[in-house]
């Protein structure tokens, strides 16, 4: 694969709460793998997925890893395009200041457009 200069846009949609299932981790794993192979990655948090980004979370209380900590360092893995659904955030009375990273707010129309311009969508 190293010989193929092929690049595509991968958009991962993380829609589920941080500690109820393995889905947020599967989503993160795919995004990191795509980034390692130097693909264009858009990471989008929507619905209950926005709870993954809360800065006051500690998985230690339930003897598990704190996913927010890993998500806070996405830029270290070359993932700079992190988006949060505006409506999902406001419906849960959350603000960008509550999040572990400076995510870009995105509306339904912009998300629609992003998905139109994406090669591969991964939905978790």
């Amino acid at each position, binding site marked *: 694969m190293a010989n*193929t200069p092929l690049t595509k846009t991968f958009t991962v949609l993380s829609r589920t709460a941080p500690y109820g299932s393995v889905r947020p981790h599967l989503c993160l794993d*795919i995004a990191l793998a*795509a980034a390692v192979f130097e693909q264009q990655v858009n990471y989008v948090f929507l619905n209950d997925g926005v709870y993954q980004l809360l800065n006051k979370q500690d998985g230690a209380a339930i003897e598990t890893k704190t996913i927010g900590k890993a998500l806070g360092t996405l830029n270290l893995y070359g993932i700079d395009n992190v988006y949060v659904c505006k409506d999902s955030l406001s419906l849960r009375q959350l603000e960008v200041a509550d999040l572990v990273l400076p995510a870009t707010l995105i509306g339904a129309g912009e998300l629609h457009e992003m998905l139109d311009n994406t090669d591969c*969508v991964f*939905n978790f």
Partner: protein
Amino acid sequence: MTDFAIVIHGAPCSSESAHTAYRFTRAALENGHRIHRLFFFGDGVYNLNRLAVAAQDETNLPAQWNELILKHKLDAVVCVSSAVRRGIVDTQEAERHELGAASAYPSAEIAGLGQLVDAALHADRTINFG
């Protein structure tokens, strides 16, 4: 003709998605499409559990996947990090971790997530089930 990458992260007995993925794959092949790769991820790795036994009036989805993979010589990959922690191992992993027996069908290869990215890059379409 479309070349599909199929990603399965639903488990065979607890979600319908794994069976839907199987039927989609079979239908795609029957209609002259290509399957670039099957990638089993998360709980989807249980679809290659060769130790699964179905009740008499039920279908054995892992056995069906195995048959389909062999019949069409499909490229099937099981995510190593998902698989090992769920006890889905080939002979090599079984030896490495001193487990005594392999639990994965040998028709699938156990490999990393790079194989998923590679499949998504080269296939015309990537479809997720789970």
